[in-house]
């Protein structure tokens, strides 16, 4: 029923995100990455399950926690790493950093430093597809925290009123920065808010990549058929702090361990073994290949030059 190559691709992408991010923790701690980074470890199934439904010509809008979305949509790890290192070879020539990585050519309309920023932008990409009569869809990733922003209401309202081909994916990782969901909104399921816009609202286990893949697949079908947007809430958890260096006084080690036991990657690996799609040896080979790719990305970043001083004044006015 499922294409074997796609399933293995999904496993590989999850491993890429995990490996890339794990290296970023080390590199950040070693002082090699300036600024700050927000990591996606633990949430890999959402980005991969969603993007497995997309074509290069489809769009995504991402968040401050955007490395996973970028990798899942086909972003290049070497250009990402070089951007994190603030090098001239990075996606944004070292002028954007972690929170502004974009690859417009393949529809990655940017990470965003403003919580909820993508919720304003995604309907516009959807409107463009509708006006031009293409079958492109736009996936808009955001967190539970962003679901309280103006852009959530205005963006979903506009997209539903105009039946735009947009899939709104709430990555409910339980916390808006330091504040638990139970303290920042009076609902348990963000998906309930879909009713206010007259669109389907779906809750899925965000640590089950197949569940995400199928739910988003349905929404993509709906969107491409001109039936408008869907709100999908993926229940998940971020293993790291809001940002690297976050003292995390707001949660317990027990809670983190509880969610680490629900790690989406070994879970998917076991499923693929059961299905006879991938052996333990094949999984190990993928992990090794990915580890080498990430090492190569780091080497590329380290060897790349800093931006020239004059670059600071470029890319502004035409």
């Amino acid at each position, binding site marked *: 029923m499922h294409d074997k190559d796609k399933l293995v691709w999904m496993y590989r992408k999850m491993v890429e995100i995990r490996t890339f991010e794990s290296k970023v923790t080390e590199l950040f701690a070693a002082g090699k990455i300036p600024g700050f980074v927000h990591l996606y470890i633990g949430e890999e199934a959402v980005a991969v399950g969603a993007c497995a439904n997309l074509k290069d010509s489809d*769009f995504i*809008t991402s968040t401050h926690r955007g490395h996973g979305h970028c990798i899942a949509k086909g972003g290049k790890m070497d250009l990402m790493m070089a951007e994190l290192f603030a090098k001239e070879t*990075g*996606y*944004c*020539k*070292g*002028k*954007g950093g972690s929170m*502004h990585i*974009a*690859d*417009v*050519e393949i529809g990655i*309309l*940017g990470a*965003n*430093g*403003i919580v909820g*920023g993508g*919720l*304003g*932008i*995604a*309907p*516009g*990409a*959807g*409107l*463009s*597809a509708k*006006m031009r009569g293409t079958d*492109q869809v*736009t996936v808009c990733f955001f967190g539970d925290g962003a679901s309280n922003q*103006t*852009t959530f209401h*205005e*963006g979903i*309202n*506009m997209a539903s*009123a105009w039946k735009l081909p947009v899939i709104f994916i709430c990555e409910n990782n339980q916390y808006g920065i330091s504040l638990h969901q139970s303290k920042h909104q009076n609902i348990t399921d963000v998906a309930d808010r879909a009713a206010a816009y007259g669109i389907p609202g779906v809750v899925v286990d965000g640590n089950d990549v197949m569940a995400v893949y199928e739910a988003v697949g349905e929404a993509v079908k709906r969107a491409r058929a001109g039936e408008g947007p869907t709100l999908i809430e993926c229940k998940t958890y971020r293993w790291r702090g809001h940002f690297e260096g976050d003292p995390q006084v707001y949660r317990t080690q027990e809670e983190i361990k509880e969610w680490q036991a629900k790690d989406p990657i070994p879970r998917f690996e076991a499923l693929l073994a059961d299905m006879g799609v991938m052996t333990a040896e094949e999984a190990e080979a993928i992990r090794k290949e990915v580890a080498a790719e990430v090492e190569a990305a780091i080497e590329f970043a380290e060897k790349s030059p800093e931006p020239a001083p004059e670059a600071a004044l*470029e*890319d*502004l*006015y*035409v």
Partner: protein
Amino acid sequence: MREITFAEATMEAMAEEMERDERVFIMGEDIARQGGIFGQFKGLPQKFGFERVIDTPISETAIVGACVGAALAGMRPVADMHFVDFITVAMDEVVNQMAKIRYMFGGQCTVPVVLRAPDGAARSAAAQHSQCLESWFVHVPGLKVVIPSNPADAKGLLKSAIRSDDPVLYFEHKDLFRMKGPVPEGEFLVPIGKAKVVREGTDVTIVSYSATLHKALKAAEALAHEGIQAEVIDLRSIVPLDKETLFASVKKTGYLVIAHESTKNGGVGSEVAAVVAEEIIEYLDGPIKRVGAKFVPIPFSPALEPLMLPQVEDIIAAVKESL
């Protein structure tokens, strides 16, 4: 040359650009079915359809956000912000998204969006429907800011704004929509970043723009009767600022007065004054004077409203104080 109104000139610009480039479209509140509150969109949807002249929900954040998204996806959106006062609802989309994306993404893409914003005090609209906010956007790198004072510039600047790959804030004063004037037919572009000397003079430079420009011209007429020959410059573009035209005039006259309807504090006049003082102060023979609205919200009362705004007499007085 045939004469048309400022509103008609903006509509002609819209129609010509939509004809020329199918990526151009416009959205905003009350523009398609109602034709715009100043009639500036009447007939446009009949020509281009309700899919390209789009009535939006009252949702400024979504409007500007969607413009940014559509631009990233290859379109060239224009939004009508209804009243400039409502742009404040969408400031994140203007300042953090639209203005910065091209630079933050390392030049991967441009964000060719035009935001049209009717501004200014007119007929007791009170504090939330009367502002002039152009100076806010002078402070944000990545935006261009234009502000026509007459029908011809309204057309030429709007066409240039739509063709600009940078996002442009286009301010149009409510009192100007009915103003009639000669407007060239067909292709007519006013370059962004180019000011215009609208009255030549030798004794003092008065820099102005938008509706206040006409007050500056009246002040210059009155001053001429007293033997003071004022040179009047219409800035037309605030970002980028045409320092060449500005400096040439100040070097000639030695005196500078700047007049605009937005508040004097932190207004465009402050920037113009600072640039002149910083770069060519040796040519000044007297103090720079700024004329702007008083530092209060615009009052509702027809008796009070004009008292808060710069009038012809204020400009005349400022010139005399400078000389």
